[in-house]
């Protein structure tokens, strides 16, 4: 490997009101290496690449590229230096053709008008290198995410990319597609392109990267040669200490079935059957896009059921809308807490009482006293740290927000709760509290369906795990069979 430094960041600092997003970050990137950037949500990875790409101005530090020092980047400058970024949200113009997207903003040749024939030919040429058969005249909006990503890569290549930054590139891809992407990355690497690969999937990092840098809370933590490090070390670098999560153990043995799902299809899921007992925690595992959240939406009536049946407490339940689900005492804690679970601009009281205000109203007019009592009760029970019930939830921490969401579901007196990624983006302390709460709830006889991408918490909390793969039920795993490898095999469809 060549040891030329192509990009070096020195003491990059970026402040937002109230937050230091980047705090004196310094990293060096070598020519022709695949350099993984690791860190938890909010560690500052995305901010850092935006700073490199010139998408945001920086408040301090400098960027060195090709022997020059820059104290401020602009999108134009960064591109002229050969830096290209593929964001999670693709920067493509959907109704335009593949070739138009690739060459947008460039002249293909010296003609004044756009020479479509030359443009299409050049695009095809790039695709051939990657062993891809993509029609340059097809419209981007008709392509799959994987194909769109290829277009993004081709766009970067057409711009004579030197440093390619990829932000969570594998998120929308299937296993086979990820393999293909890795092949392309290898090919680019051989040509001397530096790849900065951002991911939170450790397996991928070990598969593809040469070196790995870890960030935490806006700071640079460490860089390691991938071959010389291990999973455990990286995790402890990411979270800042040895990870030792304690999962509360079960005290009640569930027996009575409360929810039974028979051959359920719809919303992309096919023919799914399982059942949940009273007081049981059922884990739902699968890769991104395997149809886990989709299943939750089906059970909650937020998506249309095409066929199959849902039985609640031994009775066939017709769930066509969230109202129906709420009537059957099914509650949902959404994955996208801020987007779909909370009214951020409203107070704590409003958020807790809202789902049940119909019950609190007499002839359409609200009973404020009861509303207040309920909100107060659950705030205390959940140990929500808030100065008052009127405090807008946007001002609460992530963990407290999640507790408000929980309180809301409890106030609705649900028998069945669906938790979609309940601990995403909240700190370790709050995680612990949430695990404790979930355990308490199940001890009180509430059935819980828990969707999680964190294998450890899934294994630690669940009584049973079902695994989804590409919209289908790949298997059901009993507590005694619990093993990470087995579940991953099921999830990736290799079993």
């Amino acid at each position, binding site marked *: 490997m060549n040891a030329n430094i192509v990009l070096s960041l020195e003491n990059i600092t970026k402040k937002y009101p109230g937050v230091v997003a980047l705090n004196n970050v310094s990293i060096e990137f070598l020519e022709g290496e695949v350099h993984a950037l690791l860190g938890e949500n909010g560690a500052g990875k995305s901010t850092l690449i935006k700073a490199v*790409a010139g*998408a945001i101005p920086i408040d301090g530090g400098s960027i060195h590229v090709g022997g020059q020092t820059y104290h401020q980047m602009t*999108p*134009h400058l960064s*591109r002229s230096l050969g830096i290209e*970024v593929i*964001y999670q949200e693709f*920067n*493509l*113009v*959907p*109704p*335009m053709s593949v070739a*138009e997207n690739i*060459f*947008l*903003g*460039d*002249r293909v040749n010296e003609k*004044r*008008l*756009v020479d479509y024939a030359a443009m299409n030919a050049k695009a095809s040429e790039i695709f051939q*290198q990657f*062993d*891809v*058969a*993509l*029609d340059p005249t*097809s419209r981007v909006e008709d*392509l799959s995410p*994987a*194909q769109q990503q*290829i277009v993004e890569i081709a766009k970067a290549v057409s711009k004579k990319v030197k440093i390619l930054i990829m932000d969570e590139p594998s998120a929308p891809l299937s296993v*086979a*597609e990820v*393999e*293909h992407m890795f*092949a392309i990355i290898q*090919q680019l690497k051989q040509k001397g392109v530096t790849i900065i690969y951002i991911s939170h999937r450790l397996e991928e990092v070990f598969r593809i990267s040469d070196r790995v840098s870890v960030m935490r809370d806006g700071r640079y933590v460490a860089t390691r040669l991938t071959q010389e490090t291990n999973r455990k070390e990286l995790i402890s670098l990411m979270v800042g200490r040895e990870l030792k999560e304690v999962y509360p153990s079960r005290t009640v043995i569930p027996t009575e079935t409360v929810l039974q799902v028979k051959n359920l299809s719809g919303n992309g899921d096919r023919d799914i059957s399982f059942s949940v007992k009273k007081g049981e925690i059922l884990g739902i595992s699968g890769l991104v896009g395997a149809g886990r959240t989709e299943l939750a939406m089906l059970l909650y009536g937020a998506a249309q059921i095409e066929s199959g049946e849902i039985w609640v407490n031994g009775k066939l339940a017709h769930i066509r809308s969230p109202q129906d689900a709420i009537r059957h005492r099914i509650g949902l804690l959404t994955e996208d807490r801020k987007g779909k679970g909370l009214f951020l601009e409203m107070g704590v009281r409003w958020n807790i009482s809202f789902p049940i205000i119909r019950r609190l109203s007499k002839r359409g007019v609200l009973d404020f006293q009861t509303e207040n009592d309920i909100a107060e009760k659950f705030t205390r029970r959940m140990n929500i740290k808030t100065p008052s019930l009127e405090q807008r939830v946007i001002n609460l921490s992530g963990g407290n927000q999640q507790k408000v969401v929980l309180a809301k579901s409890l106030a609705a007196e649900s028998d069945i709760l669906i938790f979609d990624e309940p601990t995403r983006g909240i700190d370790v302390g709050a995680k612990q509290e949430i695990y404790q709460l979930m355990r308490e709830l199940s001890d009180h006889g509430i059935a819980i369906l828990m969707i999680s991408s964190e294998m450890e918490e899934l294994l630690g909390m669940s009584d049973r795990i079902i695994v989804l793969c590409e919209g289908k039920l790949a298997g059901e795993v009993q507590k005694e069979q619990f093993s990470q490898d087995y579940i991953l095999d099921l999830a990736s469809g290799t079993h």
Partner: protein
Amino acid sequence: MSTKQIIYLALIAVILVGLALFPFMTQDDSTFNLVILVFLYMTLASSWNILGGYTGQTNLGHAAFFGAGSLATRLLWVGGFPAVPSILAGGVIAVALALAIGIPAFKLKGVYFAIGTLALALILNITIGNVFPEMSYNPAISDYQIVPRYYLFLGLTVITIAAAYFLVNSRWGLGMMAVREGEEAAESLGISALRHKLLALAASAFFAGLAGSAFAYYHVSYYLNMPFGPEWTFDPMMMAYIGGTGTVIGPIIGSIFFVGLKQLLVWNVGEYHLIIFGVLFILIVLFLPGGLVEAWKKYQRWFTRWYQRRNTSPRNVIGTGHLP
């Protein structure tokens, strides 16, 4: 150049020659008036389309440019200036106005831009009406000739359409479309959204201003604030939508369709024609956002799909497993 392209160019040439010879085929003033109206609307709709269709900035103040052009021309011409420089001045004034309001106006995004420009046009409409309350008469009324005015409009229309065609098929045109689809995406591709929007606005205003100038040269008598009226924005916009925004051909089809159908409706259903237009417009916005052009393309696509189904070949495959 392929033979097909040659055939198309020849066809366009034949049509242009036909239109150029048109005054030798008829003497009828009302026919001229009708054709001139179509030309006027083609120019207005095409120029609106550069900003509204290609760049995606719904401009509800197009009348301001039309009015500015006609105001400048009429004042100069009535004041004794020769006609040709007066007409060119109209276009220039419209561009100056566009650049003056462009930078503040583009601080507004989406619908705010739309209502902001509407407000600007209304401000001008009222103010011009206050400043020039008097009817303006055509200085050439005693020996008014329709044929030169016909050629003026024909030339203007051809130039506008050709300019629109070349603009949108240039690098700038791709940039404008990228801005329409997403300003942030375009910016991250190194395309300056503001610069592209300003260019589109200036081009749009220039041709609208020239249309106003031609109108001022053509029209016998009117109040000077009349060309600032909102109908000069809304009618061309409706035409662009009916034909298909974001295409060169859409506004052309739209204006022929609009004027032609309007005449037919006026003859057949009389006063209800505007109601029918309103319904048609709503239906197109709701169900056929690409206008008549899209309807035609859908028909075409259906045809090619039918053709493809007979000769199936896979397209768009990635990961065939043979990497170099």
